[in-house]
């Protein structure tokens, strides 16, 4: 049953990156759009993510609940040493979620719209940036439980070249995912071309950010290359991701977008597999000591069992309903909120 729980944890992290990521990315695209095209971007984007955006963010809650029920020591350690970036991320989530729905549901459309939009855009950049920083610091072994000084314990645990570049990488990935997702939702050829353009730009940005991550890993003495090329599975993932990147580029330039979403999703999945495979079963690396392993720092057997049953039972309700939701609104013309 432990493996069921770990699978759910992994899957909810992946789904949060994919679906939540596309959602954050929509805000990033809006942020990067020229003033003229902002309105248009916003409209297409709203049509694409409106009905599912609440559900997109549930994956984070699922992941957190799995952590604190199933792996309490890991949850507690992360909460202590990454308190500051977690808090900033939370503030971002709050600002973003409320601004998005206030913008839509405010009965009077006036200057407040500008406030909502600004808040939405800035928090759409900040939140994935800090998500990435948290992920980067969790894998990089910067957390130091032995630290006695405030700065070492609570600041340098996350504020470093490597975590920050992972943050930037995450933000660019989100923008890219959003563009790819929205291409499939566009209604006119001009809209479609615009988002293809954005997808190209964002993929370039993501590649640049990936280079930055490699440089940072080198500078910070983090064996990133070893994680990516240290075992056959990771190598296979990286190679596949690279091949599909070329395929994706060809499609993007040809303007054929049929497989785009699948390719983009696959790339992120491969990347996550490559990194987690090498780290497994460790979820959080610590400085100078053994990392926190999912196999060791787990809750009691009964708890894990009950958690697994709850997750499996929950999926029976959730997955069909979620697919039906995605399916119904994909077929339809213009979902307009009431």
């Amino acid at each position, binding site marked *: 049953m432990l493996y069921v729980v770990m699978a759910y944890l992994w899957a909810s992290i992946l789904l949060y990156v994919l679906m939540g990521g596309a959602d954050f990315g929509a805000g990033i695209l809006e942020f990067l759009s020229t003033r003229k095209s902002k309105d248009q971007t916003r409209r297409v984007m709203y049509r694409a993510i409106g009905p599912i955006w609440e559900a997109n963010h549930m994956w984070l809650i699922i992941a957190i609940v799995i952590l*604190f029920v199933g792996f309490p020591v890991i949850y507690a350690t992360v909460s202590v040493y990454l308190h500051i970036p977690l808090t900033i991320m939370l503030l971002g989530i709050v600002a973003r979620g409320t601004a998005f729905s206030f913008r839509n549901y405010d009965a009077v459309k006036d200057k407040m719209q500008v406030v909502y939009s600004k808040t939405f855009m800035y928090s759409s950049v900040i939140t994935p940036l800090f998500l990435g920083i948290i992920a980067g610091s969790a894998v990089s072994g910067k957390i130091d439980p032995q630290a006695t000084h405030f700065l070492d314990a609570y600041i340098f645990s996350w504020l470093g070249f490597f975590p920050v570049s992972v943050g930037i990488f995450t933000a660019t990935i989100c923008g890219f995912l959003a563009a790819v997702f929205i291409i499939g939702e566009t209604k006119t050829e001009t809209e479609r071309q615009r988002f293809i353009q954005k997808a190209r730009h964002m993929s370039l940005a993501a590649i640049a950010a990936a280079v930055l991550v490699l440089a940072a890993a080198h500078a910070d003495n983090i064996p990133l290359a070893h994680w990516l090329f240290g075992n056959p599975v990771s190598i296979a993932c990286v190679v596949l991701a690279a091949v599909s990147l070329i395929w994706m580029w060809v499609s993007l330039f040809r303007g054929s977008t049929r497989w785009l979403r699948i390719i983009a999703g696959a790339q992120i999945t491969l990347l996550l597999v490559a990194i987690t495979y090498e780290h497994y079963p460790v979820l959080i690396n610590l400085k100078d000591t053994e990392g926190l392993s999912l196999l060791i720092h787990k809750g009691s057997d009964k708890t894990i069992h009950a958690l697994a049953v709850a997750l499996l039972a929950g999926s029976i309700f959730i997955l069909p309903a979620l697919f039906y939701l995605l399916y119904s609104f994909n077929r339809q013309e213009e979902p307009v909120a009431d």
Partner: protein
Amino acid sequence: MDDFIAARSQMALSLGFHIIFSCIGMIMPFFMAVSHFKWLKTGNIVYRNVTRAWSRGVAIFFATGAVSGTVLSFELGLLWPEFMKHAGPIFGMPFSLEGTAFFIEAIALGFYLYGWNKFNKWFHWFTGVIVGVSGLASGILVVAANAWMNSPAGFDYVNGQYLNIDPIAAMFNDAWFSQALHMILAALTATGFAVAGVHALMILKRKHIQFHTKAFRIAAVFACAGAILQPLSGDISAKDVAKRQPVKLAAMEAHFKTEEKAALILGGIPDEKNDTVHYALKIPGALSFLAHGNFKTSVTGLDAFPKDVHPPVAITHYAFQVMVGLGMLMLLIAVFYFFTLWRKRSWLEKRWLLKLFTIAIPVGFIAVEAGWTVTEVGRQPWIIYGIMRTRDAVTPMPGIVYSFYIFTAVYVSLSVIVMLLLYRQVKMVGKLYDVA
């Protein structure tokens, strides 16, 4: 302010903020479903307009409830890591089920808000009911988690170790039923009075009378039904507390000395130094009766416990008085309203009746906040009653004060904006919803 106090205040602030949105999230979908049902049955367009107006309101509240809830699930660790390290696997069961309930709620809400004229009309209506049912389910579950903190169960505590963990037994602890029942009725009463009051206010202003009257009638009936049941459920809660947390009961009642025929103390200023209450009205024997169902039975007082496990008596006592006092007020309004419906239908048009409901807008929510203050402050100094002290659970990170200031600023501004949005929503009824 020291960091420990800051952490407690931040937790209290976040929960106190979240509870308002969760009450509305649990109850409004049912109001909507009733009005929606009437529209589908009678074809009276006003009901459709009421449903749509309410659903927009709910969307605003839902988003705010969802993000404040997300904050809470992190805050448990950010502020109380030592607590979560041990408690997570024990009381986590309701949270993992709650995840499912939230998910279903979010999906159903997607269908409901975006599904007008797109699906079979009864399927669409049904998704609205699902929103309500899953909201209620998550409310019950999370209260069961809180009940565990009041009445720990499902493990053996041996030499500081938590052994033989049974998460199912932990979920069905002694307090879950009385607390969950009381909470749901509280949500019903508070949301009902707030909604009915807002519509009453608009009728008083002679705006879109038809629209607001229909909305008022639906909310008022629910509110009043809740208000009548609430004291009964409160009595169950009180008897329950007397059994499992006698020290909390003693603090609620400012009952310092163990005695038979214990008096019920109304009002007064508790003096924790001298263990007495000044200027109070005492009803002999009444406390014995309320706590144990017999006027003679002895009621344990604060003197039976060492000082270091006394909760803050004054706050608990005041909060309890406020809750019960407002509960009685709403009970009176409710009885009066049902009498009007039954015998004096002509009063329904009277301005003073509407004014009464307008005054009651915030009353239910004040009672909810007071009630939670009783439960949570009355549990101090324990975070897990009798097992772990709150002080031992707090995060080692210094500087929580700043985090408290930031969250206070955020919650204050969100409250202001939500009020503004609601005001605009109501103001625009004419333009947006009162069209045939």
